[in-house]
């Protein structure tokens, strides 16, 4: 009887027995990382219409975040500043800089600057800046060291599991409300314990049910 399969095919079951689990683990593990926001979203750094440097303004010049993002404590949105906010200074400072050409155009025409969104949540997730700032979560906890970024990029995955990590145990991310915009404040170094903070009128109880964020 002629052999249908050559002799080396005897190794196929063995090879499969090794390759399939390895392949499956690699596929699941790969998807676990490469399909997750840790890979797809972290590091997202779109080109912005104006070469605005947070490292200069928030870092070296030491401007408070809330000078520009002035609605962060009042609204769900930490509004991207209007052109007028830029011109408050740049009508005087560096008023002829070529880098500010588009800002001056916007100021004169009234047309909005078209910034690229960096931190993007899906439409069905209703994040609220004011609630987080009132609880004493610092800007740096979600946005990273903005004061060191020439061009803003996403530092955290902003995924649901990442949100829930903090909603389950917020204490490590809490700080006194006076230090909210401080990029270098360190809870460990400061020895901060929110439960002993006399300025807090209530315990932080982040919602963990669906409608806390989804409506």
């Amino acid at each position, binding site marked *: 009887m002629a052999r249908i399969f050559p002799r080396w095919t005897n190794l196929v079951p063995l090879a499969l027995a090794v390759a399939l689990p390895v392949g499956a683990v690699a596929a699941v593990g790969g998807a676990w990382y490469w399909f997750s926001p840790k890979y797809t979203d972290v590091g997202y750094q779109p080109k912005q219409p104006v070469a605005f440097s947070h490292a200069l303004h928030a870092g070296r010049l030491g401007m408070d975040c809330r000078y520009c993002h002035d609605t962060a404590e009042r609204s769900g949105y930490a*509004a991207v500043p*209007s052109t007028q906010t830029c011109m408050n200074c740049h009508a005087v400072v560096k008023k002829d800089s070529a880098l500010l050409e588009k800002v001056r155009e916007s100021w004169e025409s009234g047309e909005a600057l078209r910034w690229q969104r960096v931190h993007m949540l899906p439409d069905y997730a209703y994040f609220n800046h004011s609630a987080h700032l009132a609880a004493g979560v610092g800007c740096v906890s979600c946005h990273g060291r903005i004061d060191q970024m020439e061009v803003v990029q996403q530092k955290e995955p902003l995924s649901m599991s990442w949100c829930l990590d903090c909603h389950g145990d917020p204490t490590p991310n809490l700080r006194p409300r006076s230090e909210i915009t401080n990029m270098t404040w360190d809870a460990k170094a400061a020895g901060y314990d929110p439960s002993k903070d006399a300025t807090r009128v209530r315990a932080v109880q982040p919602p963990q049910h669906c409608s806390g964020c989804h409506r």
Partner: protein
Amino acid sequence: MSDENDVVAPTRPQYWRSLDAAAGNTPASRREFPDGADVIEVDDVTRRQFLGIMGASLALAGLSGSACSAIRKPAQEILPYAKRPEDLVPGMPQYFATTAFVGGSVLGLLAKSQDGRPIKVEGNPAHPGSLGGTNAWAQAEVLCLYDPDRSGTPFHGKGAASWDEALGALRGAIDAAKTAGGLGIVMDSRPSPTRRRLVDSIAQQCPGTKLFRTDAWADAAAREAAALVGHAGDVARVDLSTADVIVAIDCDFLGTDGDVVRHARAFASRRVPESPDGARMNRLYVVEPSFSTTGTRADHRLRAKASQGVDFLAALAAQVGLPADAASVSTGRTLAGADAFVAAAASDLKGAGARAVVLVGPRQPAAVHALAALINESLGAVGTTVTWLPDPLPKAQGVVELAAALRAGEVKTLVFLGVNPVYEAAPELGLAELVKAAPFSAHVGNWRDETAAACTWHLAASHWLETWDDLVGSDGRVSFTQPLIAPIHGTSSDNEILARALGDNSDGRALVMATWGFGATGPSEGDWRTALQTGVTSLTPAAVAQATPAPTAAAVPSEAAPAAPAATRDLAVLSAGLAAAAPGEGLELNIVLHPCLADGRYSNNAWMQELPDPMTKLTWGDAAAMSPATAKRLGVSFKERDPLVVDRVTVTLGGRSLELPGLISPGLADDVVVLTMGGGRQDLGRVAKGVGVNACELRQAASPWFAAGATVARAAGRSRLYSTQEHGDLTEPSVGPAFIHPDTPVVRGDLVRETTIAAWAANPQVVRELDVIDPVEEKSLFKDTSPDITEAARGQQWGMAIDLSACVGCNACTIACQAENNIPVVGAERVEDGREMHWIRLDRYYSGSEEDPKAVHQPIPCMQCENAPCEQVCPVAATTHSEDGLNDMAYNRCIGTRYCANNCPYKVRRFNYFNFAAENDAMFRQADTKDDQGYVDKAFQHDAPATLISLQRNPDVTVRFRGVMEKCTYCVQRISRARIDAKVHGDGLVPDGGVTTACQQACPAGAIVFGDLSDTQSRVSRVKASPRNYRMLAELNTQPRTSYLARVHNPNETLEPPAAAPSAHEAAGEHHG
């Protein structure tokens, strides 16, 4: 069913929802998910194939390109303001006080603006016309604002024209009339002093100017009657909060007729027996031909033809008495067969004296209004329930006089302001031809409607959310309309257009300020800002005269000047009017305002088309309604086992006939056929096109609202009505114990509960005794599933109570919810399949005989069960319980199994079978090509309106996609906003009253109370502590957070002796046996 009938005590009415069900048939209601419900042809691809294709394309997308580019969310831009307006905080809504003329009533409103878009209106609690409530019409106005079919440009004939051309033509015509005369101005009843000032100014400059008023709320009869009884130039203001006894004749004062919001609040305040006012419960007698929502609230209701109203009133007058100087007024007739009713009403009226009122509806002739005014005077009600106030409207004539003036050539130049008489007027007047024949005619309005089509010019007017205006409320005080948005289509208000015609180029704001002399001769600029901020003023129209020099008497044409108050009564005219108002023989045709479409101004509003009529539950189309006995006599019937497929009938009156579906409607007077306005719009817009028929084609000029001598004959064929009558049937045996074991007899506590004030006073437990099981027996099958609401550490626990004793069945809650929660419209064909999406529905139950039933409405939102059956069957945990007691729905997790809806005993879950929210989805454009197969989807025949309609959407609520289950959330977005606000500014606890749900806020009657149950002092906790409080289907142990308070009636014992039958408790006891 028969078992239950045997043990039912007379105090426990049997409830039924349709005649078919009352006849003992299992409702032909199809299953909740009918066969083929999930199949629709998309380019000849079925849904199943479609999903297959979709799956394949997703897989391919994953293979091609890198994972990052395929999975990374699409790039988005952020466009901040170049110069952000002061006080505007992105993401935070702004509220502006404004005032609108809606449904014949001036309502003070708070309009919500999100990023510059008005998206919702609420009542202004400080305004006496709304008292914080609204009605369905006011709620629907935001959709009218964004309607892509609303007129945006002037038209000359059939072609678009420029504003310069149109305004130039109008100004030229007015200039010509200054010498030639012959100007006629036809207006609606909007009581705007600024418009009146401008119209007066035109009338002063154009000799012989005639004013006409033709809209449905013109109340010409009441104004004529005021003159007959010595109150010429006045209008009567009725205050129901002081009325102990109300007799309403053909007057739907809680539904369509005039100040319904204010009346609903006042009426309801006297129907809640726990409150100090409600303890002195009022008593309502209603005499009416149709079955209105006001009729459902009657303690005693008499079915009578509209034309018999005069005889009823005459009989009442004979017993109550008339003022001495008018004692001779009589018809000499009485209403046969109503002696006991008349005697009871008369004795109650006399007993209440000054605290009683007789109301007559606007459809009734002047003589009947006058007779009612005399009865009120004789009761001493003037000064308590009735107040005479100066009429804010100029004296004007009606549509009959308009036609006569046109025919006689007295009016050659016509200007229509916000009215549509060509659609509404009796065809015998031939108004369309007369208007077309007029040398100059201009129509100013929101729509290119039938009148606009007949005019040479059409000038698109702004919506009231885009205009400045001033309106005189029913209390005689003015409040201002301020724009929330610049005119979307670049239109002007009718005030501005009138001013342009006079050569005045001021904007609307300057025109209004000039009327009152703000900052000049009148109040200060500061007063103006205060008036805009609060939405109320203490100004009355008398202040206009001081601010602007009044036209001298000689220069004013007689028609425009208010007549000098007549010192005496015109009893001869009154007696002649009463004699002429004799009831006619034979079948009587009644035309009534549509409870949703009104006079047709909401015909192109998809929310209103799909809103079920509170009584007939019809959507998308209308029918000729008649009582079961009349239908039987006329041979009108419906298809066996499918009561929504009805005979078509031909209604004929005065030589004209109209063919439409015939509807058998319980509770109508016999020998009456009732038609609603608002249908048969061919060219108004894409939503209204082809829906229903125009009842006004049968109008008689002499008696526009009802006329005897109609005939109804069966026409060929049958047609389907789109009704929600059988949807969400909670009495199905599949719900409840029988579901657990098929042999378990279905024994159920009454879904709606009613009692009388006497029975309740004698035994406050009368409502709770209807529970099938005692509260102590309510044991959970599941351990620790219900949150312990007394445990303060768990935070606030939300709950709702709905008082059926206050609810007037007006539908405001349904539309408020639709506006707040981005609820889509599905179209007629989908309603037939039971797919309407309303999160709060209004169940209407009849009880008693088919001919003369009582009815009760019950709003049904999600019950937010603590032990929710829906949560237990969701395979993906898309619906779960929140720690504050809400039954959450995570749309993005839902995979559309619909198990939850199947398991919901209250039938409150709604499934997005299709991508309803995306109106211009290609799927629905298929509808146009399938017309010949009867496959018409009226709501979705828009071409590309999505960008405009989507401006209405509430950004705080997810717009749901296809395949997702949704339901009432207790307005969780409002709870979240209040909770975040409390966390930012306070101790994290929302104060009582800090959250109002959309339905609660809209409710004109204040029937819905919402709040924190863990706080025993909160309003909702106190309301729920009433022994009237009961939980629907409590025996299923769902532990619903929404509970109801039983309706309490206040019958007259001579008409309805208290039941001497076994008590309800004994009856309930037999159920167990």
